[in-house]
């Protein structure tokens, strides 16, 4: 290379020192422009800073030194093929409605910070994918940065050569080092001023726009100089083309097609292009302007490439490096000013690319590699003290330095070898491996993380094996034997003839196989795997970005404390901005002056803000640490689930209702049973009453009719039948009395008259009452008057009624020849106990349980009177007096026991 440079004629014009001075002045200008833009942005006076023009010009980072110098060299070697590198991006821009518009919208909605962040975010905020893409981008971009350093160094050398007679030739390596260091400083100063990558680097973008103007102006100036200064206008140029060695149309079809495809793919996936296209985009409408303005820029850049090449080829000696024609042609014609402008153009091309690439890569490295490691090392993470903001910024600065250092080292150790264009294409093919995952991610909801990982790894591996490693040259990293015979002599694994396909251009071969295998792995991997919930949600958000402009909300009402969140947010966003954010949220929630409620919405908003600073995966992880990872039941899934939930709720309501119905039904059935039972009881009771009433009435009617007939019935009969009628009416009356009595007792409506009495007196009075009954048989009553002498407070009349009933029963039913009734009273266990035991046959065992029921008259002793209500009445009376009456089995005869308290409970209450 040096020999080439030295072959330039020594027509000294621009002293090297002046060149360095111009260069430094230019850099200072860039600093001032960037600084001024930052200031204006800080004051909110964006004005022209966010015009579509600036956006369009910033896209020119696509045109690197490779374009500026290399395109001419490319044209000098291969004719018109160089134009494919611009046709691809032109088609992408013209077709912005397809992909770019969507990418920009997604980038804005999801606060995407880089192409790695986009892929990571799309496939479930997977940091593994972020790491893969980042590594690929670093590997693919490093040679490219080296290429820029090389071009700047070479262009310096062109001028330095002029001084070679009078002074020492500056060391090319140290020039490269100085350039790299200067670029690092500029990038760090303007690229890491603000943390939020989404807040856009107005200073940098403005400086880039200025550089875009410079390089276009320089190339156009050289072009005009060549066409109208050196040659005699366009027709002369066309004539010279016809006589040049590439006058014949010799385009290789497969290369032509492959290069257009490759440049289009790289335009979308190059980290620096993604940075300016998506991340730095301030308004979607700018895209509409850029859709024609940027192709126009590319058109103008390309317009004079072929003329410069043909003039250079014809005017400069054989063997001159065509990559530097842009500089050497003006120098050759003593146009020093023009040459200096061209130098600045080349310098601009190289620096703008390096700056943007460094910013893009440092964001990726910091967000996807440094921060996750830092977070996992400090497990306690986001809540401990320490400024995460500082950590993020520092990691970005270090990353910028490291990336430039890497570029410099690559430049040093590759020895600046190979044609510029070749390195550019290798790099293009490397980053293009992201394309299937990227396009699949925004157009295909079925694309999954596993598919993306498989595609990326396979594509990248094939690229490295068939293109990247061989690009170092035979014998560098890969032995020539391996290239010609394949590894271990396996022919179909030859890096540049995979699967035995030979004769293809190596570039086409590598692009074909890497993209084909990449895409296949991506599609197959996606089809055979299932996305997780976040992935599903993100997939929908990305693919349908125009339908729901809303953003992913992955957080549910959570236990997170607003204070913890504020602490973390302050450390990432900065105290002022974080507080402003929280304050705005408080106001929105109507809680001015307090911390906002931690709603899912708010957490979603906060996550987006943090995403802008540290990337989706990291932001998600940091919030997850505070909120607890389990809260990721996703909002949109919830929306889908809502329907299900509503149905579930409805069906559970139905179920509840049907249970209630069943319960009610059961209750109704029970009630019905009860009613039926009551009805049966009532029927039975009425039937009994009817029978009990009709029987005496029958007698009364029959005998009264006999008496009415008069006739032959004698006085004897008349007397007898009148008596029967009389007795039966008394029976009827007593029955009605008993019924009323029982009814009153059963309903608890009875009025009891409590008084102090002696048990002895009550029993005596009862015995006296029974002995006076008409027609009563004689029964001897055995008593122990002394033991009966017990005081009692009760309703004496009612108690006597019970005793009378019991004595009357014994009188009626005792079937002994000499009936006896023993009455024994005593105090036992605090209760008064009175037993009535006769010497009859007693009551059959099976009947003992029913004797206290109504109408339980056991035999046909109707004549004894009573309708079988006596014992039922006794039971009710004893219950009312706080005692009880029971049948005593095994006493040798009918035996009843009456138990009661000495003082009736209700009587106590009265007193």
């Amino acid at each position, binding site marked *: 290379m040096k020999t080439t440079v030295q072959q330039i004629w020594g027509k000294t014009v621009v002293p090297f020192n002046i060149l360095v001075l111009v260069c430094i002045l230019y850099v200072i200008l860039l600093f001032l422009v960037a600084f001024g833009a930052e200031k204006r942005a800080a004051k909110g006076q964006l004005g022209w800073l966010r015009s579509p023009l600036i956006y369009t010009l910033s896209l020119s980072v696509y045109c690197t030194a490779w374009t500026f110098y290399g395109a001419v060299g490319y044209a000098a070697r291969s004719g018109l093929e160089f134009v494919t590198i611009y046709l691809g991006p032109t088609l992408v821009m013209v077709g912005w409605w397809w992909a770019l518009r969507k990418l920009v919208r997604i980038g804005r909605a999801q606060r995407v910070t880089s192409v790695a962040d986009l892929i990571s975010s799309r496939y479930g905020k997977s940091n593994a994918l972020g790491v893969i893409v980042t590594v690929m981008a670093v590997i693919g971009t490093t040679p490219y940065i080296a290429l820029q350093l090389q071009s700047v160094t070479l262009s310096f050398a062109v001028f330095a050569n002029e001084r070679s007679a009078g002074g020492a030739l500056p060391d090319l390596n140290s020039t490269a080092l100085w350039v790299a260091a200067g670029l690092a400083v500029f990038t760090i100063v303007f690229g890491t001023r603000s943390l939020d990558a989404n807040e856009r680097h107005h200073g940098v973008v403005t400086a880039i726009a200025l550089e875009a103007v410079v390089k276009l102006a320089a190339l156009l100036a050289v072009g005009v100089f060549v066409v109208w200064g050196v040659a005699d206008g366009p027709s002369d140029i066309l004539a010279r083309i016809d006589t040049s060695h590439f006058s014949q149309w010799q385009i290789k079809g497969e290369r032509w097609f492959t290069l257009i495809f490759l440049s289009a793919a790289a335009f979308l996936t190059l980290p620096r292009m993604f940075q300016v296209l998506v991340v730095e985009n301030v308004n979607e409408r700018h895209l509409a302007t850029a859709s024609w303005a940027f192709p126009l820029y590319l058109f103008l850049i390309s317009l004079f490439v072929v003329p410069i090449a043909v003039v250079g080829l014809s005017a400069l000696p054989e063997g001159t490096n065509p990559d530097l024609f842009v500089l050497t042609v003006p120098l050759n014609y003593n146009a020093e000013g023009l040459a200096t402008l061209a130098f600045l153009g080349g310098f601009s091309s190289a620096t703008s690319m390096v700056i943007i690439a460094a910013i893009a890569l440092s964001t990726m490295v910091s967000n996807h590699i440094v921060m996750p490691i830092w977070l996992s090392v400090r497990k306690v993470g986001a809540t401990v003290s320490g400024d995460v903001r500082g950590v993020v910024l520092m990691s970005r600065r270090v990353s910028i330095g490291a990336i430039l250092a890497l570029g410099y080292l690559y430049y040093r150790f590759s020895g600046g070898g190979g044609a510029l264009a070749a390195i550019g294409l290798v790099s293009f093919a490397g980053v293009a491996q992201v394309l299937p995952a990227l396009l699949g991610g925004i157009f295909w909801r079925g694309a999954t993380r596993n598919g993306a990982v498989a595609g990326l790894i396979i594509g990248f591996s094939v690229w490295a094996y068939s293109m990247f490693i061989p690009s170092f040259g035979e014998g560098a990293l890969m032995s020539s034997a391996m290239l010609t015979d394949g590894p271990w002599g396996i022919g179909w694994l030859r890096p540049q003839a995979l699967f035995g396909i030979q004769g293809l251009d190596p570039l086409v071969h590598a692009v074909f196989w890497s993209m084909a295998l990449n895409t296949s792995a991506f599609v197959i991997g996606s089809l055979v795997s299932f996305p997780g919930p976040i992935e599903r949600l993100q997939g929908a958000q990305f693919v349908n970005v125009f339908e729901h402009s809303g953003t992913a909300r992955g957080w549910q009402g959570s236990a997170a404390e607003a204070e913890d969140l504020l602490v973390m947010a302050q450390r990432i966003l900065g105290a002022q901005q974080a507080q402003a954010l929280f304050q705005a949220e408080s106001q929105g929630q109507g809680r001015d002056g307090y911390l906002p409620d931690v709603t899912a919405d708010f957490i979603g908003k906060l996550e987006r803000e943090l995403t802008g600073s540290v990337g989706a995966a990291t932001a998600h992880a940091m919030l997850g640490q505070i909120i607890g990872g389990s809260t990721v039941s996703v909002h949109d899934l919830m929306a889908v689930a809502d329907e299900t939930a509503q149905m579930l709720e409805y069906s559970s309501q139905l179920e509840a209702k049907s249970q209630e119905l069943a319960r009610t039904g059961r209750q109704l059935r029970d009630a019905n049973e009860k009613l039926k039972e009551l009805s049966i009881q009532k029927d039975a009771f009425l*039937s009994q009453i*009817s*029978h009990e009433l*009709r*029987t*005496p*009435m*029958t*007698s*009364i*009617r*029959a*005998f009264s*009719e*006999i008496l009415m*007939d008069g006739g*032959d*019935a004698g006085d004897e*009969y008349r007397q007898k039948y009148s008596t*029967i009628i009389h007795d*039966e009416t008394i029976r009827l009356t007593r029955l009605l009395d008993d019924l009323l009595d029982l009814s009153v007792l059963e309903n608890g409506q009875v009025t009891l008259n409590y008084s102090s009495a002696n048990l002895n007196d009550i029993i005596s009075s009862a015995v006296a009452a029974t002995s006076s009954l008409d027609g009563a048989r004689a029964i001897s009553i055995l008593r122990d008057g002394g033991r009966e002498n017990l005081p009692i407070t009760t309703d004496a009349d009612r108690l006597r009624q019970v005793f009378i009933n019991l004595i009357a029963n014994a009188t009626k039913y005792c079937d002994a020849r000499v009936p006896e009734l023993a009455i024994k009273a005593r105090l036992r266990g605090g209760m008064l106990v009175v037993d009535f035991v006769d010497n009859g046959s007693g009551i059959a065992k099976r009947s003992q349980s029913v004797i206290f029921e109504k109408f339980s008259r056991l*035999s*046909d002793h*109707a*004549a004894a009177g009573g309708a079988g209500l006596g014992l039922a009445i006794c039971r009710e009376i004893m219950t009312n007096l706080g005692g009880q009456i029971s049948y005593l089995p095994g006493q040798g005869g009918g035996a009843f026991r009456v138990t009661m308290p000495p003082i009736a409970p209700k009587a106590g209450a009265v007193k």
Partner: protein
Amino acid sequence: MGKRVLLIEDEPNIIEAIRFILSRDGFAVDTHSDGSTALQAVQAKVPDLVILDVMLPNRSGFDILRDLRAQAETENLPVLMLTARGQKKDREMAERFGASRFMTKPFSNSEVLKSVRELASL
């Protein structure tokens, strides 16, 4: 010799009344008071007519009627049922079991006499 009537009834006053009415008209009246032995009393000496109470001690009049109808010799024996339970379902039950006639207590003496006369003359 008048027709023989068997009165199955437990209420003494009612027995007295019916016996008086029928005897006066020339019927021979036998009585039985216990439900459980009533069937045997009928079979021992089949009368021209049975007057049967429903609510008897130990056995229901309906059961007795059913048994009477189940045997050839008493299959067509006229039976006048008397009951103090004058409900509709009692009348239906009597008809189902094959009572010749059904009367509720309290009854009219003349109607009882008329019914007995009619049934006995069959």
